[in-house]
C-alpha cells in the first residue's frame, strides 16, 4: 500500500497533516500522538515579532463547530527558531511553518529565515480573518496576493511554498490561480469562514473581537466544494482543510481533489485524532482495494 504523496518537491510519508493554529508547536500534542506517524506538522502562524493576540473571550462553540478569534498569538520568529523548531526536528515528519506578516517585506524576511533554517515548507497565511493589519488583506486582494507570493517565491530557495487561501472571497478559484501563477508550489484551503455569535441575554457578541473564524464539521461541505472547484482550476497540489473529523472526511477531500488533508478542530476534541484518521484511511484502502492513495485523488464522478 502506498500512502506517500507529494506537495511540490516535498514528499510526505502519508497525506495526514495538521492545520496551523490547531496543533500548537507540535510539542503540546507529542504525548498524545507519535509525531513520527504524521505526514507533516504545520505549526502555528509565526510573525516577525511575538504577538499577544486578542482579548478574551477568544473562542465560542457553535452548532457543529466553533468560532475563534485568537488573533495569532505566537512567540515570534526568533524564539520559534531557537526554542520550538529544535523540538520538531527530533521527529521524522515534515515541518511546515505558517507565516504571517504586516507587509510583503515582513513575509519575505520571515520566509527567508525559515528557508535558511531548513524548514520543509512555508505556508503563507493570507487568510486569517481575526487581525486587522496584514493577513487577510493579502488573501482577498488578488493583486496584492500575486505580488506577495512572487516576492516570497524569489526569496525562498529550498522550502516548498504553500499559499493558504481564504474562503471569504467571491470566487476562490481566482485566488488559487493567482497563487499558482506567482509560483506557489501548492495551495491549502480553506481557512476559517468569518462568522459571529451573539449572547441574546447581554446582547453582546460572544467574542471580544466581535467576529471570528468558523471551523469544524459545520464548514466541511463548503471546504469540499472549494477543493473540488480549485482542483479543476489549477495544476498544483491542494491541501484540503475544513472540518476533517475522521477518515471518511479525509477520503472525501481526496476524492474531491486534495492531495493531502490537514486536521484542525478535531485535534481539540480528540488530541489523537490525526493518528486515528490515518489508521482509518488505511482500513478504507484495504477494504476498497486501493493500492495507492493518490489514485483516489479527484475521482469524484461527475459527468
Amino acid at each position, binding site marked *: 500500500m502506498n500512502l506517500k504523496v507529494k506537495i511540490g518537491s516535498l514528499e510526505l510519508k502519508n497525506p495526514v497533516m495538521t492545520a496551523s*493554529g*490547531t*496543533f*500548537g508547536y507540535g510539542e*503540546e*500534542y507529542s504525548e*498524545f500522538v507519535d509525531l513520527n506517524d504524521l505526514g507533516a506538522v504545520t505549526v502555528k502562524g509565526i510573525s516577525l515579532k511575538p504577538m*499577544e*493576540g486578542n*482579548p*478574551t*473571550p*477568544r*473562542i*465560542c*462553540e457553535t*452548532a*457543529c*463547530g*466553533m468560532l*475563534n478569534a*485568537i488573533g495569532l*498569538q505566537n512567540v515570534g520568529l526568533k524564539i520559534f527558531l531557537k526554542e520550538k523548531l529544535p523540538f520538531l526536528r527530533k521527529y521524522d515528519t515534515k515541518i511546515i511553518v505558517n507565516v504571517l506578516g504586516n507587509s510583503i517585506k515582513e513575509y519575505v524576511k520571515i520566509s527567508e529565515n525559515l528557508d535558511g533554517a531548513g524548514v520543509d515548507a512555508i505556508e503563507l497565511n493570507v487568510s486569517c480573518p481575526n487581525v486587522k493589519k496584514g493577513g487577510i488583506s493579502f488573501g482577498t486582494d488578488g493583486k496584492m496576493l500575486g505580488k506577495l507570493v512572487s516576492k516570497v517565491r524569489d526569496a525562498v530557495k529550498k522550502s516548498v511554498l504553500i499559499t493558504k487561501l481564504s474562503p471569504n472571497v467571491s470566487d476562490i478559484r481566482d485566488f488559487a490561480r493567482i497563487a499558482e501563477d506567482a509560483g506557489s508550489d501548492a495551495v491549502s484551503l480553506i481557512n476559517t469562514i468569518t462568522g459571529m455569535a451573539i449572547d441574546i441575554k447581554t446582547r453582546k457578541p460572544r467574542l471580544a473581537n466581535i467576529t471570528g473564524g468558523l471551523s*469544524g*464539521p459545520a464548514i466541511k461541505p463548503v471546504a469540499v466544494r472549494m477543493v473540488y472547484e480549485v482542483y479543476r482550476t489549477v495544476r498544483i497540489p491542494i491541501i484540503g482543510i475544513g472540518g476533517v*473529523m475522521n477518515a471518511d472526511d479525509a477520503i472525501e477531500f481526496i476524492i474531491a481533489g486534495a492531495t493531502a488533508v490537514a486536521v484542525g*478542530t478535531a*485535534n*481539540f*476534541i*480528540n*488530541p489523537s485524532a490525526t493518528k486515528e484518521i490515518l489508521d482509518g484511511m488505511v482500513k478504507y484502502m484495504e477494504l476498497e482495494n486501493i493500492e495507492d492513495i493518490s489514485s483516489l485523488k479527484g475521482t469524484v464522478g461527475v459527468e
Partner: protein
Amino acid sequence: MVEVNKGFDPILKRAFSLFRRTSDGFQILYRIIGKGTSVLRSMKEGTEIDVLGPLGNHFRAPKQNQIPLIIAGGIGIASVFPLIRKLEGRAYVFYGARTGKELFMLDELKTISKELVIATDDGSAGEKDTIIGVLNKFLKNRPSLIANYSIYSCGPRPMLEKIAGISAVHDIKAYVSLEENMACGIGACLGCVVKTVNGHKRVCREGPVFDIREIEW
C-alpha cells in the same frame, strides 16, 4: 476535559475540576448552565465517555503556620472542595450563592471545615450578604491574625476581582482558580488565556490556579 456528547453538537469537551475521588474513579460537580451541561445530565448511567486529564495545576496546601481562608462563589465550590478536605478541619470556609438552593454539600462542608460561613443574596441560607461582605466582616473582627491568612478561591470573576482588592489592601497571599472558554485543554488552541503581569497565560496549562497578584484584573 470531559466529553459531553458523542456527536458534533455540542462538539467541544468541557473543563471541570476533579471534585472528589471515589474507589473506582472520580466525581465532578456541575451546574446546568447551557447546552453541554444539559446534554451531560441527560446521559444514561453507565454511558462511557471520553475524559482527558488531569490537566493543569492545582491549589497547593498552605504551610502549617498559615490559616487558610477558602472562598467559594456558586459552583466554584467544586474546585476548592478537594483542598478543604485535604486541610482536614483547618480551613475557614466562606461559601456564597444567589440562593440557598444553589448551595451543595453543606453537611459535609460543616464537618470538614474549621468554620463554615454561608451567605446568599436573598438571605434564604446563612447571612443575607455577599461573600465579600462576610469576608470583610471576618477580617475586621480578627485583625491580629491577618499576617497568617492565605486565601484560596474560585467563583465568578467580579468576586475574584474584589478578593484581589482585599488581598492587596491587607497584604494577604491569595490564589484563585480561573475559568475561561476552553477548546483543547492542553495548551494548543490558546483560547483560554488570561492577562497576567507576565503576558497572556493559558488557564488550561499554566493555570487554572494563579497567584492573585499575577492576574491583570
